[in-house]
């Protein structure tokens, strides 16, 4: 290590994917890419080659069975299916008979033949026109590399020395699972989003994680000290003593803060002057529910049902969906659960039959897809209705942009109810139906939409992107993504005021709802429900319980008069200080 590397710390900013703070040595986790040499084998050595293959297959099978069982236990049957296919390939007698005979006929080493033979299939799959088959090529590659690694008698990296920070380009679900059996301080990856499978897993396992750290790996060597802040998304390589001190102090502050907040668990999200709001959680996996209950949530404000499709290879049937929704309904009962119908892009269900969209954000997604495939939509709606038997389920449609879509979706709900009645199945006749307000057009006509729904929920992530015409995944313009842009704040006021003309509750389930800096403003604008990441619940509750509604309204009014984001943020930061809120 060069001396200047010791002195200079490098700061990376990524996306905070799972909260927590960690300082520890880096462990660079890389995909095993075997090096294959072609060798000629003496005739008397051929049987030994074949025996070597047999024992490598045995070891691979044992490894995969373990991963499969572990995945079933951590993620459930449906998501574990991806590993089942790999197990079957290991049992493919046609494949391995032809590998055996090639070894005998060509007198080549087993590594070379295994690689060459499986590569034939992989190449065909990579070139396939449908996404599903191309994804399966990754399974084939994975299983091939597993066999090759076992041939070279290298161990599966599943036991790690000490407690490292895992640094990797991306993290496959299988790897994240296996690694999590060790004490992992944190996961940091170059690619991935907040809803990527490894991010979900990190949250379920309560391991701090930061994703989207571009060009990180080039600056990290094994054993380098890493400081990871899973709250803010900052990762520091070779931090100075001062940085480590600072981040550890932050950790202490957070722990103390969390300790104090824990006392709030059973108290309502209510202002000192009696304005009670709902504080609910956004959730992807049923594994998160226990944590959500511990956090003292008033219910689930957003269940992203499309997370059922992650990793699973088949569109889940009505029965499979019902079973999953039922877990949510039962675990949270008597608290409320809002199930958002699949918010997916068309490629999820149509594979290659869809033409590639040049602008998927403005394309075939959300309710648009589901209304075009009513049989899929009806299946989901029936599953949701069946899970609503105990009357604690609501249904929400994403990406609504006009009244017609809402009416069509509601008509399909009526049809689904009729089908269930005909089947003699119980459901909640008065199930509450709401929509996401995330397309600006829906915000503009929200007074009309509000007359035909039981609630609305503002999806700020998309709403802000559409309103400001900024793709926040695009580095060049991501600075222009401003939660506190005056246009956003004024738009929110409009949505809340106009919805209330119809006396329906207004929720928010975008990231902004969980941003402490926005809480007083949103409270003052009259928001009725904050649906946030589970980890944020105590802090948001604390803020709500500290500020009188009367004062929050005044603060919101003042904020509405401001004309730059900087001014707004400075003002709100000042307000937070006045109330002695926040961690600092």
């Amino acid at each position, binding site marked *: 290590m060069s001396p200047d590397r010791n002195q200079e710390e490098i700061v990376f900013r990524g996306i905070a994917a799972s909260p927590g703070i960690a300082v520890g040595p880096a462990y660079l986790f890389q995909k095993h890419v075997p090096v294959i040499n072609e060798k000629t084998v003496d005739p008397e050595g051929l049987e030994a080659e074949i025996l070597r293959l047999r024992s490598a297959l045995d070891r691979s099978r044992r490894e995969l069975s373990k991963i499969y069982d572990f995945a079933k236990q951590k993620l459930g049957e449906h998501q574990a299916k991806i590993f089942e*296919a790999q197990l079957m*390939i290991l049992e493919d007698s046609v494949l391995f008979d032809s590998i055996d005979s090639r070894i005998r006929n060509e007198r080549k080493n087993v590594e070379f033949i295994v690689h060459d033979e499986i590569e034939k*299939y992989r190449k065909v799959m990579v070139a396939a026109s449908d996404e599903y088959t191309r994804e*399966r090529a990754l399974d084939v590659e994975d299983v091939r590399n597993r066999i090759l690694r076992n041939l070279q008698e290298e161990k599966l990296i599943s036991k790690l020395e000490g407690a490292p920070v895992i640094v990797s380009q991306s993290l496959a679900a299988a790897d994240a699972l296996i690694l999590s059996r060790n004490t992992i301080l944190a996961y940091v990856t170059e690619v991935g989003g907040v809803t990527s499978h490894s991010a979900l897993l990190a949250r379920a396992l309560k391991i701090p994680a930061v994703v989207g750290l571009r060009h990180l790996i080039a600056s990290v060597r094994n054993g380098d000290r890493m400081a990871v802040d899973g709250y803010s998304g900052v990762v520091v390589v070779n931090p100075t003593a001062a940085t480590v001190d600072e981040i550890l102090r932050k950790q202490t502050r957070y722990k103390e803060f969390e300790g104090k907040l824990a006392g709030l668990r059973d108290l309502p999200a209510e202002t000192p002057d009696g304005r009670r709001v709902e504080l609910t959680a956004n959730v992807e996996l049923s594994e998160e529910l226990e944590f959500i209950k511990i956090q003292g949530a008033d219910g689930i404000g957003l269940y992203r049902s499309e997370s059922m499709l992650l990793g699973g290879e*088949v569109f889940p049937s009505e029965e499979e969906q019902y079973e999953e929704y039922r877990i949510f309904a039962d675990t949270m009962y008597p608290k409320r659960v809002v199930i958002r119908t699949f918010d997916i892009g068309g490629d999820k269900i149509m594979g290659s039959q869809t033409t590639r969209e040049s602008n998927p954000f403005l394309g075939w997604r959300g309710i648009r897809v589901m209304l075009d495939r009513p049989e899929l939509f009806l299946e989901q709606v029936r599953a949701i209705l069946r899970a609503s038997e105990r009357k604690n389920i609501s249904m929400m449609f994403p990406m609504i942009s006009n009244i017609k879509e809402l009416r069509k979706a509601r008509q399909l709900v009526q049809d689904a109810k009729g089908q269930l009645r005909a089947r003699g199945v119980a459901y909640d006749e008065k199930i509450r139906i709401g929509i996401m307000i995330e397309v600006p057009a829906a915000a503009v006509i929200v007074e009309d939409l509000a007359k035909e729904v039981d609630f609305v929920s503002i999806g700020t992530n998309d709403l802000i992107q559409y309103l400001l015409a900024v793709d926040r995944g695009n580095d060049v313009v991501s600075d222009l993504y401003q939660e506190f842009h005056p246009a956003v704040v004024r738009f929110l006021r409009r949505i809340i005021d106009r919805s209330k003309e119809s006396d329906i509750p207004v929720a928010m389930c975008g990231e902004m709802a969980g941003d402490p800096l926005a809480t007083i403003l949103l409270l003052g604008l009259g928001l009725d429900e904050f649906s946030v990441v589970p980890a944020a619940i105590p802090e948001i509750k604390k803020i709500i319980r500290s500020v009188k509604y009367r004062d929050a309204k005044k603060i919101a009014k003042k904020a509405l008069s401001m004309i730059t984001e900087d001014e707004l943020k400075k003002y709100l930061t000042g307000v937070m200080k006045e109330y002695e809120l926040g961690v600092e």
Partner: protein
Amino acid sequence: MIEREVTIRNRAGLHTRPAATLVKLAAKFKSDFMINKDGFEINGKSIIGVMTLAAEQGSTLLLRFNGPDEQEAAAAIQELFDKAFDEPL
């Protein structure tokens, strides 16, 4: 030798689960079983082979059976395709 033309009827296509069912059923017969899709042919008793087919809903496959129990094999496998692997259409 027997040839049969079949169409993939289930919504999800010949994905891993039906592929597994197909391969397991084919293994019960002694006869060779080949699947041809658009001129590309694979051994129907091999899961990795069937995975390469990328046979979506609506695709047509040509099945070839050759061996002592080809009649029985053809009938059993034809039935599996006819009932769309017991999956949603």
